[in-house]
């Protein structure tokens, strides 16, 4: 049974009954999630889960700690309150610990779509069957997922703060394979109606067919047209550096670089949970309303995001991006929106004399935290472009590329779109054409 606002309030009343802490916070969540997974043109894994949890944070004499349980009977609620308090008492006081925030006002966001909540296993199977039929039409092998879910978050504290958010989610992703080539497509949305699985299946199939018998290519620097998923998975490694605490602790690549023109003139990025293509609750881990924050304007690092404690340390105002306390990380922008341009991917290809079209990237890892050099591989649809046309598929390549340098070499961009990859949380980002992207080695397929 999903959590309702009334049920959450009832649980919090019990928490307050049993908590003897100076201040008490309760994070109550429930989630149900179903996922149909297919491979070799068959459904091979098909799962559903539901659960509810209560997480209590106690503050006593400038100390705080958290205890969580998924047992919600009266006795377990009492025990989790006692556990949080006992853990808090066992540590040294923190003179900088802030009082919990009082009541807040939140801007409404509507991210609950009943069609996603009600999507049945049979309906998911029928969609998968259509994708498999698309694969088999061209002798392809399909693998992928179709999932849907509901999540509910309620946050209360003893100073009267009350926040409640419910939203749905849906995802369809698909890989099509044939004789050493493959293609991939993915989309996520709060509404399963937005996914267009048949369009994604067709896109993945065309990539697999067009990249058959991929050719070797020498590693080196090439102009690349990065589809949005490739852009997303690279940028995902940059944005935790926009947390104020990471700069304060000098572990961010933005340390000593705030206010500098670090990126190209055409780079503008903000964090905006209220953007129509974004998802997530309008409040952070302490219940502070999320604000829109301009992070990068015309290439200049303008602002960071701040949890309450970080804001206090750094003489700033909280922006509503903190993680639940206590935590080591402070905060991060989680609803990135990057401005784009008007170019289509076809425009970018037409403008390229010699280069590569990259569908997605894989196993990206940070090589250098300050230069922000990343390494990773191309995957599932990498193509050679010559004289403005896609010529053929190429075998996958490894890159070692600084994202900072990359964002100084963006020549063209497409319209921003909600994008999902496998290495980063979803963002609204454009496709882009980048010059001199550094590929260091190749593989054999």
């Amino acid at each position, binding site marked *: 049974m999903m959590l309702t606002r009334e049920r959450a309030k009832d649980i919090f009343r019990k928490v307050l009954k049993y908590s003897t802490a100076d201040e008490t916070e309760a994070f109550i969540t429930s989630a149900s999630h179903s996922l149909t997974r297919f491979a070799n043109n068959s459904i091979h894994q098909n799962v559903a*889960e539901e659960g509810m949890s209560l997480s209590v944070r106690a503050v006593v004499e400038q100390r705080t700690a958290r205890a969580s349980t998924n047992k919600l009977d009266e006795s377990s609620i009492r025990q989790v309150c006692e556990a949080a308090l006992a853990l808090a008492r066992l540590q040294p006081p923190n003179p900088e610990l802030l009082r919990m925030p009082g009541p807040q006002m939140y801007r409404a966001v509507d991210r609950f779509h009943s069609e996603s909540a009600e999507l049945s296993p049979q309906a998911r*199977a029928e969609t998968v069957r259509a994708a498999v039929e698309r694969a088999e039409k061209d002798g392809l092998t399909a693998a992928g997922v179709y999932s849907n879910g509901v999540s509910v978050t309620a946050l209360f504290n003893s100073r009267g703060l009350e926040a409640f958010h419910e939203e749905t989610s849906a995802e369809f992703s698909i890989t099509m394979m044939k004789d050493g080539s493959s293609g991939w497509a993915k989309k996520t949305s709060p509404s399963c109606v937005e996914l267009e699985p048949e369009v994604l299946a067709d896109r993945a199939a065309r990539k697999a067919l067009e990249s058959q018998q991929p050719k070797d290519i020498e590693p080196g620097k090439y102009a690349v047209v990065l589809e949005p998923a490739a852009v997303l998975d690279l940028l995902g490694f940059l944005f935790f550096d926009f947390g104020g605490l990471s700069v304060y602790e000098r572990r961010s690549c933005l340390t000593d670089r705030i206010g500098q023109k670090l990126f190209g003139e055409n780079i503008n990025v903000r964090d905006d949970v209220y953007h129509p293509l974004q998802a997530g609750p309008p409040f952070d881990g302490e219940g502070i309303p999320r604000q829109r924050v301009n992070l990068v304007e015309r290439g200049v690092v303008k602002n960071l995001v701040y949890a309450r404690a970080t804001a206090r340390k750094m003489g700033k105002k909280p922006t509503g991006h903190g993680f639940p306390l206590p935590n080591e990380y402070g905060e991060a922008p989680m609803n990135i929106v990057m401005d784009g341009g008007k170019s289509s991917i076809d425009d970018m290809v037409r403008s390229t004399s010699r280069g590569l079209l990259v569908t997605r990237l894989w*196993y990206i890892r940070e090589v250098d935290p300050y230069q922000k050099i990343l390494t990773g591989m191309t995957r599932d649809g990498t193509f050679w472009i010559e004289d403005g046309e896609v010529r053929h598929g190429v075998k996958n390549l490894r890159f070692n590329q600084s994202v900072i340098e990359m964002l100084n070499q963006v020549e063209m961009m497409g319209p921003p779109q909600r994008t999902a990859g496998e290495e980063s949380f979803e963002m609204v980002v454009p496709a882009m054409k980048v010059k001199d992207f550094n590929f260091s080695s190749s593989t054999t397929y």
Partner: protein
Amino acid sequence: MKEYGVLALDAATSQGAVYADVRVMDIRQRYLSTKNGETAQVRESESLGLGVRVIVNGAWGFAATDDLSRQGVLGCVLKAIEIAKASALVKKKDIRLAPERKIVDQWEAPCRIDPFSVPVSSCIDLMLKVDAELRKVKNVTLAEVSLDFNHIDQLFLSNLGSEIRQIKTQTGAGFVATSFAGNEIQRRSYPNSFGGQYQTKGYELVEELDLLGNAPRIAEEAAALHACDQCPVGETDVILGSSQLGLQIHESIGHPIELDRVLGAEANYAGMSFLTLDKLGHLKYAADIVNVVADATPAHGPGLGTFAYDDEGVPAQNTPIIKDGLFTGYLTSRETAAEIGQERSNGCMRAEGWNRIPLIRMTNVSLLPGKGRLEDLIADTDDGIYMETNRSWSIDDRRYNFQFGTEIGWEIKHGKRTRMLKNPSYGGITTEFWNSCDAICGPEEWTLWGTPNCGKGQPMQTMGTGHGASPARFRKVRVGMAYSK
């Protein structure tokens, strides 16, 4: 636990499941961390729930719930049945499982000191002492220490009649010294990066690691990295430290031998494998001196892949993976073993929690030791680099092209460890690399490392795996490419 499990199993069978298994899991975690002289995280959690896996109409269904009322459990079973029927709408053949016998048993992993019995205040006191040692060194700008304790109590029931209770305690501990200077961030971790060392044992692990005694050296190295030379670009002999070699095994042997990947089950996410079925028993994976096993048995040691039975009720086994350099075995499940005509699963199915299906996961995939000490191996090397402690790792979706970075390296010249090198990296092709191995240190240098963060599956599951390794030498390896422009 048994009451819920039996209720679910009986319901699944009566609803037409030809196969059903139920896992009830009660998981408790305590995580403590400090940062620059203050506590950072102090949290505890518990999670109790049940997952039901069924085969109906020749297809799989799975559902999980933490509503352990009669109504909640029965609803979960009906959901699993409904899902299996939906799976059967898109199938090419019926699921077949390799035979397994009924097992009724109970096993508890050895744990000398229950970490939950150690006062939190004592843990924090130790962590803050380590923190203070790290920050005594000038230019250490961030000191982080963590302790992680997990207790997993699991009951497995299946309609084969199996009833298996397993109780495990796992402990993790480590620290990181970060130094920002100029335009560079350098880190040193002990005893390993990304959380330190993890094993299936109790608080005794924390005592064995001597965190406090190692803090000054690690802090000094973090600060010293700024001033030392960059790892050169080119081709040279490389000696990998034990923990880095553990991750090399994980990525370039452990993952490609997962038979579900080989057969395409992970094609859309984690990827497939270059180890196609024709290579079993034929591929010269590595040099003759290389012997690798996948050993889940307690005799192998307290690894994160140590258990008595896997999550399909198959007994833990020791499977030769590479024997004298030859590829000899996959990690299997009952379904994949049957698929390739093997008589029995080698017991590698594990689930992250009650709410996830078991997948083929590495157990303890370990390189068996050779001979000699690290210093002997360095003395035997004319020109090369010794690299220690992972910093970055990346490998393609067939597990063939890899690149790793380490936190620190030392040049070796004429048998001596000479100047320190920063930002070391190396890379290559899996089989070429393993065939270039010409020396492996002995049992006295062998450590069973824990990798607590191995991701696989959709929904994503994080699993702990074990990797025993002693330092080893590889000839003519490409180095320095991560910074090459």
